[in-house]
């Protein structure tokens, strides 16, 4: 994290860290998909398989004390920011050891210990909440930033526009990260957007914008690192990044759905070819890569075991935390 950006050469230590994060997310979600038919995971899952590089790129540029706000499609951002895999897996199983005690499930991940704000199943709702968090940081003169993730669909909600205006007006330390995977559920952008001039529109609020087409986590990292540096404790104001990406699986659930008719498998091909897990992985010495892979498998097995063997909550838990005590 303290490392400097270099134009051409990226230190192996950076690549290894980024690869580890990419691979962990990919494998964790593949594992979720594998377990899913057993019906042990009692939670609707929105997988990020194919989209991992955005969260990884963003989070690699952040400090531990920085904050991320994920969506219901949030495993990637949660893990990339350092959220515990064990606690996440137990949460998906509905176990009391889960990160939200089994009350939140996959759509409502949170881990305040790693500055992961709570996700929401209502599209777009976390955007202004992230702004409020950033406002508090700014008022406290803390040199921290908030990165808020949302999909292309979320930009259609009025609250997105309201939030852009307010963030720019108050010069909040917010990195807006739009994960544009071209679809909201099964509906493609041309059926939802009058034009695709999103960055141009955001720029009219006086917000600097970036458009990244290939999901390269190193590019994303550089953009976020620059923006965060400009913001920290100062009056830099927000930045907006639109990252194009592609969802490889169905909207919700573990499967592929290229036979459903709303998109073609051919659309997936270029994204498979440009898979960042592979691209970054190939830049590592094979031995190092294999070691990382092996460690991840162990971590995964442990997490699944933890989830499987953890108990469900006691009935009394139904009534805890409805209201906060003073």
């Amino acid at each position, binding site marked *: 994290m303290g490392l400097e950006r270099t134009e051409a050469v990226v230190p192996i230590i950076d690549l290894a860290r980024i690869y580890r994060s990419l691979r962990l997310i990919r494998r964790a979600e593949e594992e979720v998909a594998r377990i899913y038919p057993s019906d042990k995971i009692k939670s609707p899952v929105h997988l990020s398989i194919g989209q991992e590089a955005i969260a990884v790129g963003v989070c690699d540029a952040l400090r531990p004390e920085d904050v991320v706000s994920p969506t219901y499609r949030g495993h990637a951002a949660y893990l990339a920011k350092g959220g515990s895999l064990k606690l996440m897996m137990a949460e998906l199983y509905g176990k009391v050891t*889960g990160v939200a005690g089994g009350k939140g499930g996959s*759509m409502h991940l949170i881990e305040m210990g790693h500055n992961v704000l709570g996700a929401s*199943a209502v599209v777009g709702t976390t955007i202004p909440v992230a702004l409020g968090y950033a406002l508090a940081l700014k008022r406290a003169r803390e040199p921290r930033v908030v990165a808020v993730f949302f999909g292309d669909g979320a930009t259609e*909600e009025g609250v997105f526009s309201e939030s852009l205006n307010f963030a720019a007006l108050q010069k909040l330390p917010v990195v807006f990260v739009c994960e544009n995977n071209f679809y909201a559920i099964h509906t493609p952008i041309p059926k939802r957007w009058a034009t695709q001039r999103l960055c141009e529109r955001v720029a009219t609020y006086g917000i600097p914008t970036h458009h990244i087409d290939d999901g390269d986590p190193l590019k994303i990292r550089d953009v976020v690192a620059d923006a965060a540096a400009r913001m920290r404790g100062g009056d830099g104001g927000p930045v907006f990044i639109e990252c194009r990406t592609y969802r490889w699986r169905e909207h919700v659930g573990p499967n592929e759905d290229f036979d459903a008719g709303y998109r073609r498998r051919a659309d997936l091909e270029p994204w498979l070819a440009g898979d960042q897990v592979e691209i970054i992985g190939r830049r590592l010495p094979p031995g190092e890569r294999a070691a990382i892979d092996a460690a991840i498998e162990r971590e995964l097995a442990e997490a699944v075991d933890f989830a499987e063997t953890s108990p469900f*909550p006691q*009935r009394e838990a*139904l009534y805890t935390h*409805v209201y906060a005590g003073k």
Partner: protein
Amino acid sequence: MSMPESNQRLLTYVDALREAVAQEMRLDPRVFVFGLDVDDHKAIQGSTRGLLDEFGPERVFGTPLSEDAMTGVAIGAAMAGMRPIHVHIRMDFLMLAMNQLVNIAAKSHYMYDGQVRVPLVVRSMIGKSWGQGAQHSQGLHAMFMHVPGLKVVAPSNAHDAKGCMIAAIRDDNPVIFVEHRLLYSTDALVPEEAFEVPFGKARITMPGKDITIVGISNMMMECLRAHELLAEQGIEAEVIDPISLMPLDIDTIRKSAGRTGRLLVVDNAWTSCGASAEIIAGVAEALDGGRPIHMRRMGYAPTTCPTTPVLEDAFYPNAATIAGAAHAMVRPDKTWQPDPERAKLAYQVKFRGPF
């Protein structure tokens, strides 16, 4: 109700909804269906399937994620004489449309002294189970029952789903149409032809003399199962389906409770300021110092809906807890809880009409 038996077939709730809409769309070119994902291959769990093919994209279309504006659009189109059906896959999302529904849809006919009407159907589904969680499971019909100018219906079976949908489409007012997702696969005898289930008329689904049990939306199913468990104990519960919540047929409920002396209202919602509060209060007011009636509400636990199944189970009333509560009201001296194995069996019982 007035339909000849011969025209009835077993139909699922989801098919009944779709048939109602299709029939009205054939009849009335002003009717159109829109909302997020109504035109995709999942077709709102099948409830809009085939409509795009039959009626084309001008009458069946998806929208951007913009619930607030889309509700306004529906209202404006209704004012211009069209009859929109606006579909939401979760009732929770109506919270984004409250301003248009409460401040415009409910008020326009009155505030503008009858110069406009808002014949609008808002379809909204209540989610349940399988980790739907806090934001995908709410039955919020009470909020709409609170505001004059809106109508609210919550059909509990395929027959009423069709009849209420047709009545809602033909109604000149905004109607909040409450659908429970677990009802979609249930079937009942449904007439082939178009018919209306009139609003403001409750149905005594099962007659009985010991206690009156009112079940709203999906809770009707649980109440019918509870009825069965109670019958085995020699308790005859009268089960009432209000069908429409605004207008509400408090009279039928009041009279039944007057006969049985006991009233248990079970809602698929929280009880505080809920439909169950309204029903109890309505009956209590009507008592007017007469024979006291023993009354009780059941609904969501007064907490937020958790995702994990063990807690979610305890969040909802079910056949066993309803039967237990009713039993305690009828025989306060005896303690009884239904045998869990037997209660499970009760889940196989379906009520399919005739209505």
